[in-house]
C-alpha cells in the first residue's frame, strides 16, 4: 500500500480522543467515521482526504477497548498506523477486525517521517519506503499468528 502521512508527534493518543465516549452508542461505520479524532484534531477529515497513513508515538490507542476507535479512523480511509508502540486492545482490534495495519517502527524511522511524506509499505519485505525523501526503513515484522490473521482478512476468516 502507498499513501500520504498524517503525523501526530505525541505519545499516548487515547481512544477517548480518537472516538469520544458520547459516540459509543453509534455502530454504523460511516457515522463513526464522522467523529474520528474529534477529541484532538478538528482538521483530521480534511487531512484524511489526502492521506491514508497515521504516524505517531508510543502507546497509540490506549484507554478503552472500544473497537469504535480503529473503525472510525479506517472509515475515513486510514489503512495503516505506524507507531512506536500500540496499546494492546487497539492492536488486537485493528488486526482481528481487519480495519487497518498497526505497524511498529523505531525511533529513528519515526523521526525521519514528516507530515505529508508519501510512503510505500511492503509488509512482505517488512519495509517502509519514503518516496518523498527517498529513504527506506525497516518495520517490526508482525508475529507469526498476526501475520496469518492479516493475510486471512481478519480473525473470522483465519482458520487455526
Amino acid at each position: 500500500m502507498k499513501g500520504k502521512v498524517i503525523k501526530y508527534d505525541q505519545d499516548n493518543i487515547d481512544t477517548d480522543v480518537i472516538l469520544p465516549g458520547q459516540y459509543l452508542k453509534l455502530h454504523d461505520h460511516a457515522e463513526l467515521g464522522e467523529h474520528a479524532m474529534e477529541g484532538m484534531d478538528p482538521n483530521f477529515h480534511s487531512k484524511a482526504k489526502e492521506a491514508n497513513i497515521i504516524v505517531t508515538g508510543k502507546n497509540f490507542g490506549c484507554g478503552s477497548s472500544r473497537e469504535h476507535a480503529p473503525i472510525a479512523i479506517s472509515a475515513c480511509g486510514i489503512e495503516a498506523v505506524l507507531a512506536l508502540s500500540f496499546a494492546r486492545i487497539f492492536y488486537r482490534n485493528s488486526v482481528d477486525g481487519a480495519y487497518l495495519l498497526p505497524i511498529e517502527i523505531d525511533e529513528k524511522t519515526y523521526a525521519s517521517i514528516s507530515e505529508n511524506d508519501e510512503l510505500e509499505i511492503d509488509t512482505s519485505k517488512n519495509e517502509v519506503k519514503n518516496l518523498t525523501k527517498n529513504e527506506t526503513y525497516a518495520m517490526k515484522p508482525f508475529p507469526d499468528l498476526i501475520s496469518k490473521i492479516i493475510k486471512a482478512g481478519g480473525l473470522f476468516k483465519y482458520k487455526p
Partner: protein
Amino acid sequence: MNITEKILARASGKDKLEPGDVVFADVDKVMLHDVSGPGVIKTFEKLEKDGVVKVDKLFDPSMVWVAEDHFVPSAEKISAENISKLSKFTSKFGIKKHFKYGLGQYGICHTLSHEEGLVSPGELYIGGDSHTNTTGALGAFACGLGHTDVAYVLLNGNLWFKVPETLYFKINGKLPEHVMAKDLILKIIGDITTEGGAGYAMQFGGSGISDMSVESRLTLTNMTTEAGAKNGIIEPDQKVFDYLAERGVTEYDAVYDDDGAQYEKTYEYDASELEPLVAKPFSPQNVSVVQETTGIEIDKSYIGSCTGAKYEDLEAVAKILKGRKVKVRTEVVPAAISIYKKAAENGLDKIFLDAGAVIGAPTCGACCGAHMGVLAKDEVCVSTTNRNFPGRMGHIDSKTYLTSPLVAAASAVTGKLTDPRDL
C-alpha cells in the same frame, strides 16, 4: 509457572507455558454490555452478509452474561434502540444472565462480575470492556477485548492469547487511615507510567494485599488497565472464598503460583508510607500528593464507576460527609443496585442526601462523558473514576482529577481539592 501462566496453560490444554507463547485457549466466561453488545451484533450481521459465518447459535449461552450500564437510563432514541436490540439478541440466543436496568439487580458490568459471583478463581474470563481486568482480584485471568474478539468467543468458545510476562507488585504494610487502595494504584501508575504495564500481567501480593478487603483489591486490578496491562491478578485466599460463598459460589478450582514462579520484574511498596494522592489532568500517570494540589477549586465531585463506587467506597464517602454539607455539586452513583440497596439499608443514602449530594441510578454515563452528568467547558471535577484524558468526562476543555473516595468526599465539603486529614 505463575498464576496467569497456569490459568492459560489449563485453558489451552498445555502442561507448560512461557511468556511469549501464543495459544488458543478455552474461555470460561464472557461479558458484554450495551456498547460492546450492539458492536457484536453489528459484527455478526456483517459476517453473515459477507457469507463468512452463519450465526444460528452460540457456543454456550450459559457462559455469557450481559450488563446494561453505559447508556442507561436511555437519554435518547439511539441508546434506547441499542438496549432493545440487546434484549432481542439475548432472548434469541438463550442468554439468561441479562442484567436489565429497572429490573432488579443491574449495574456496571465489572461490579456485577464480583457482586453476583459471576467469575470464579482459576477461570479464564473475557469481556467487551477494557476494565474487565477488575475481576482478576478474585484469582481469575480477566482481560478486556474489542467486540470482534468477543464475537469470536461467543461462536467458538476460544480465542488466541499471547502469554504475558508478569510484573509482580509486592505490597508490605497496612494502608494508613486516610489512604485507600485507589491511592496505592495511583502511586504505582505514577511510577511505572500508563505504558509501564503494557501487555503485561500485573500481579499483586504480599502482606499488604492479605490485609486488604476483596473490594480494595478490586480497585487495584481495575486500574491495571490504566497501566496498559493485559490482566491484573491476585492469588485467591480465604477472604475471596468467603466473599464468593456469601454469593452462593463454592465450587471452583483455585489456582496459585508454583514454588519458584517467575516474574519479569518485582516491585516493592510499603503501603503504610502512602499519602492521599491525585492524578492530575490529563493522564492517570500524572500523579502527585494531594497536599501539593490543595486549594484547586472544583465544580463537581463525582463518586461513581467500577473503580470508586463499591460499597466500601460509599462507606468511606459517608464517613466524611456525615454531619457535613457539600459546597459543590456532588453526585453519588452506586456501581450496582445491590450496593445502592445496602447503602440505603445502612443509612448511607440519608447521609448523602442530608449533605446535599444527589444519588443517581447505577451507570457508567458520567465516567465516560456520555450522559448523566457530563462536564461543561472549563469545569473541574474531582472523581473516583479511572481516566482523565482530555474530554473523558465531558467537554474537551474540562478537567478531571482522579482521587480516592475519601479525597473526593473531602473536596466536595470544601469545594477545593482537599486532603481528608485537613478536614
